[in-house]
Structure formats: structure tokens, C-alpha cells
């Protein structure tokens, strides 16, 4: 499962990040790394991007990019 498919209000654990390049590095730089808990807080009113809580702060990420984050 990827972070894109996680329903609002659920907390998941990051398993792996796929892909490469700037987007992947940026996602990791912002603290979404292996083993961390991510809480999916809400979806933007137009359906994209999503807002997640990670390492105690709020992060907004596009669904297309969230697909790179494998979770369990």
C-alpha cells in the first residue's frame, strides 16, 4: 500500500520509499523516512494534495508524490 491510498484519520508506518531524484530526496529531507509514523490528517478541498503529520509537524504532499511512499 502507498501513502496515497491511506484514508484520512489513520496512522501508518513508512516501509520504504520508491523512485529517485529530487522529489524522493525532498520527501526524506522533510522527515518521511523508513520506520516513521505518518498520520494522514486531511485532503485538500479540491481532492489533492493531502496533509499529513510527521515528526510533530504538518506537511502537505501531492498524491502523485505520496505514491512513492510505501506504508504498512
Amino acid at each position, binding site marked *: 500500500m502507498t501513502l496515497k491510498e491511506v484514508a484520512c484519520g489513520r496512522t501508518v508506518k513508512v516501509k520504504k*520509499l520508491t523512485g*529517485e*531524484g*529530487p*522529489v*524522493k*530526496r*525532498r*520527501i*526524506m*529531507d*522533510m*522527515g518521511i*523516512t*523508513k520506520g*516513521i509514523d505518518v498520520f494522514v490528517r*486531511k*485532503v*485538500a*478541498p*479540491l*481532492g*489533492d*494534495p493531502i*496533509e499529513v503529520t510527521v*515528526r*510533530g*509537524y*504538518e*506537511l*502537505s*504532499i*501531492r498524491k502523485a*508524490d505520496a505514491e512513492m511512499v510505501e506504508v504498512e
Partner: protein
Amino acid sequence: MAVRIALAGNPNSGKTTLFNALTGSNQFVGNWPGVTVEKKEGKLKGQKDVTIMDLPGIYSLSPYTLEEVVARNYLLAEKPDAIINIIDGTNIERNLYLTTQIMELGIPVVMAVNMMDLVEKSGDKIHIEKLAEKLGCEAVEISALKGTGIKKAAELAVEAAKNKKSTAPVHEFAAEVEAVIHEAEEMLPEDIPEEQKRFFAIKLLEKDDKISGQMSSVPDVSACIQTLEDAFDDDTESIITNERYVYISKIIGDCVKKEKKQKLSASDKIDRIVTNRFLALPIFALVMFIVYYVSVTTIGDLLTGWTNDTLFGTWIVPGVTKALEAIHCADWLTGLIADGIVAGVGAVLGFVPQMLVLFLFLAFLESCGYMARVAFIMDRIFRKFGLSGKSFIPMLIGSGCGVPGIMASRTIENDRDRKMTIMTTTFIPCGAKLPIIALIAGAFFHNAGWVSWSAYFIGIAAIICSGIILKKTKMFAGEPAPFVMELPAYHWPTIGNVLRSMWERGWSFIKKAGTIILLSAIVLWFLQGFGWVDGRFMMLEAEQLDSSILAKIGNVIAPVFAPLGFGDWKMAVAAVTGLIAKENVVTTFGILFGFGEVAEDGMEIWPQLAATIAPIAAYAYLVFNLLCAPCFAAMGAIKREMNNTKWFWFAIGYECILAYVVALCIYQIGSLIIYGTFGVGTVVAFLLVLVFLYLLLRPYKESSTLNVKMKTVRARS
């Protein structure tokens, strides 16, 4: 001894507040050479020999964003004597991630843990001494907003700079990783100073594509990379990022005591409403309405009107003219001073009050945290054509006046999105273009409502198509734009910071954009006001515009517009005077057709104008004026915001070419449909449509590296 201290930290960590508190009004704002990233420098309060350099807010020292590359190039090449690393205490985990990277640069670091008042209020505890020990640097608790601890932070930094002693980074990764880093360090060229070895080794292992420019020779570390990747079954970049966060998580447990809290913070409560699925859009619309209503429709318009009409129109300009006449100044000199220079200055200053009102709003929205939510809410719509969700505000303001619209693009962090917004904002018909629309609609189309609707439609279509086309061009494709954005906690901004931000932007407009506006106003005043009458070169009365130098130029360039259907020199001249201010197009027609003053929509000249050209040509003329280069004031704003001559001309050139092509297609294809005329022009028009469709539909791939030409300086040893 002169000391240079760099201020580094995450965006939203209170860096600007701290910088202001450290330097007071002793600041110099500029740009990093060659790029549009703002550079701020200042002298430490009370210590003239200490320079503080405010680095761009960054999350990491990766090679992918302009800000990060600028910051790390500065730190590596210029080697400041010390770094103050500001950290948001309420968000310490992610903030320390940058710290672990900064620690590897071999420069003494003082950690300033900010927002301690908020940390205490939430019941959390940060053991500052333990934290300092675990990271191997000095650490102070501060509150930039309240001003506590700032002095101590500055003193520690100056002391560290004078001692010159940088402590080696003490953070450690997993043993296997450390072994490989050590191996890579051994392979580095000799001229890399001992204390920077870890940084270079890690960057090489991460396959960083910007690091080789800073080394004399690049060793081959592929074997090391292979070892690591095999051991961890991941790429090196991920492994090292992971290791940093693992280390941080470990020390956080010892140094930070989090209050177990279940209840929502005030910020969470606000966000629940403001970005709520159903309420977000109405609230957004309301906020935008207030911004627009106050800064464009009411107060802003009132102030601008007063500055233009009363202050300059009835007091200063006539006053200066009278004074000059009283001392029997030569006519041309009176004209130059009063109508050229003073009126030109008025043209610049006229925008300022409205702009200040707008900047006040923007500064407030930015520092309270709502601006990030604007991007969050609008992202879905705007990203499709290469713009940011924050592009909404410039475009909205642009429908009133393009000049503050362009200046409002400053809130967009991403370089590519910002440039794209600057280039396309003026496609939206601004207030000054409305008289042109009224003129054409009245003279040719019986005031049909569709004319003005179509003007807005064409403006929006031009923005969307330009976004898609430009995104794929070489100029823009070089910048990756990941949208992984922090949504900072809401907080109440301080009046001082908001006012300072408002003033800085307003002043930069006056200074940078003002010069170009003033100069071009004077040049056009000369071209319009002088000419040949009966073979004698002289200064002209307003009614003699058809003898002016400008008219001569109009005659020369008129054939260029023949394929667009308006090859008449009067049309060309009117379009050129539109560069001063778009509403001048109508006034110029008034003069050229022999009426002194005309109504705003030029009603008096409707019959004559209608007799000059065909309706379809008039519509093409309207479209040309809507899309082509904006007025000088807007061009000045573009120049200011692009901060780069090449980009400025690219923007203006693109707008003019697009205007020409669209007007040509409208006239040629329109003529074919209405009158059945078919010729070379028609063929060209169809070919242009095909090229346009190709540019629009060709495939596009986001770049994976940052293409930026910067003066890369080798690290000094």
C-alpha cells in the same frame, strides 16, 4: 577584527525575526549573484565589525533547490567565521536534520533554539546542555519574538568566530556507514581541509551532482557506494538521510521531554476550520475578497487616485510649471521638468500607496501562516499549467493593476513558479485596459457584452497555454519543483515584522522599478512632444502629435502590423503610447482624430475609427493590446522581480510575440470565415496554429537535476 557570521535555518523557524533583532535597521538587501534569491546582510547591533549574513531558509543542503545550492556554496566557498543555526524548538526533530549537515562543514556553530516561550507553554522540556553536548556545539535558548537570549547567542557566535575552533561533528551513524565514510574521506584530494572532509565524503557518496565543481579532483567512490547499497539494499542518498534521522530520534529521546497531549492546539483548531473540506473555499474566497476590496477597489484606489490626480495632477505638476514659468525658464526645459521628470516620478509614486496596502496584507498572510494554506488549497488547479497555488493572488490583483500583481509574486518561493507567474500575470486585463475594451466594443460591436467577456477569456487562456508551453521550454524545464511543503503552525505576527516587510518591498519597487519607469517616461515624452513642423524641428503642442517623432516611428513600424489588419500608423502610435499607461491608447486616438479631449471610452471618435478598419481587425488590435508588453510601470516591476536582464527581455519578448501571433491568427482566420479572403497570411496563420498546438501538446518530463549556472568557487583551504 572583522567577523562574518552566517545565519542558517529552516523556513518558518523565525530566522527573519532573529535577523531583524540582531541587526536592527542596519541592513542591506540585495540578490545572490545571477539568481533571484534574496540576499540580506547586516551589521550586528553595537558591533560594527561583525557582519551577519542571512542565508535563504532551507531544510537541507541537497543539490536540488536553488536556495540550498546558494546556501551551501556560500558556506563552502566563503567560509564564514561562525554559523548561528536557528532552530524551531516546537519542531525540533526536523530542524535538527539541517543541523547535522551544517555541523559537517567545519565551521564553528552556535545553535539558537527559538520559540522557547511556546515550548514552555506547551509543557515540553528541552535540555539544552544535553543537546549541545550530543551535537558538539554551543546552544542557547532564545525567543526571537520576545528578544530573550538573542544577545547571548550573538556573543557566543562572535566568541566562537574569534576562537576559530570548530568542533568536529560528534554525531555518528551506524558502524558500517561510518566505515565507508571514513574510506571515502581517505580518497579525497589533499587540498580539502581536514574539518570539511566528512562533508565532501558524504556528498560524494550521495552522488551529489553539484559537489564536483567545488573540488580540485574528484575521486572515484563507486566501490564505496556499491558496498553501502549492497549492505542496506537502498540507495546511498536514502541511507544517509535515514542515518541522520535515526541519530536525531536517538538524542531527542534524551534531550526533549514531550508532554503527552491529547487535546488540539489552538493552531490545530484554526486549521480544522480554515482548511476544512467544505469551508476552505468559501473562507478563501472571503479572504481574497477582502484583500482585493481593500487594496484594489477602495483604499488602494482612493490613495492612488489621490496621488495621481490631486497630489501630482493639481498640485505638484502645475505648481512646478508655474514656478518655472515665473523664472522664465525655456519652454522645453519647463516641459522636460514638469511633464517629463516630475510626471514620471508621479507615475512611479502613484503606485506606491496601493502597493503598500497590498504588501501589508501579504506580509500579514505570510507571517500568520495562511499563505502556505493558499498554496495547499489552490495547488490542484494551478500546478497543471506550471504555476503555484500562490499564483492566484498575483493574478487576482493583476485584474486591478498589473504592477502590484507582479510585485505580489514575491510570496512564491519556487523560482520556476515565480518567474512563470511574473510572465503571465499581465495577460489578465487590468483596470487601465478597460477603456481600450470599451473603445473597441463601442466603435465596432455596438457595445456587445461578449467583447469584454472574451477579453478576460483570452487573458485566462493565454495564462493557461503559456504555462503549459513555457513549462516545456528549455528556459523552464531545468528546475525540478517538488511540492512537499510545510504547513507552519498559525501564529499572530508582530506589527514590527509586518511593517518592515511591507516597507522593504515597497522601497525595492521605488528604487529598482522606479528608475526604468522614469527613464522610459522621459524618452516617450520626448518622442511625443518633439517633431518637425514645416521642416523645422521644434517642441509641439499636444494637438500636433501627428508631426512628432513618434508619428514618424509609427509610420515606419506600421507595415509590421499590416498582416494583423491594422497597418494604419495611427494604430501603431496609439499602441506605443499605451506603453506609458494603457488608457493612453484611447487618449492618443482622440488627439490623432482631431479631438482634443475624449471621454474615457472615446465615444467621440467611434464613427471615425469604425471607418478606418474592419471590425475583425479592430478585435485583433484589441487582443494585441491586451497581450503585448504591459505599460512601463509593469515592465519596471517585471525587471525588479526577475532581477536579471536576460529573463526580463525573455518575458517582454514572449509577451509581444504571443500578442502578435494571436492577433495575426484572429485577423487572418477571422477574415477567411467572415469575408472568405484567402492568401499567404491565412496559410501562415494556420501554420502558426499548428506550431502552437505542437508546443502545447508535446510530451514533457520533469528535470531531475537543478540546472543553474552559478559562479562556483573552489573551497578555500
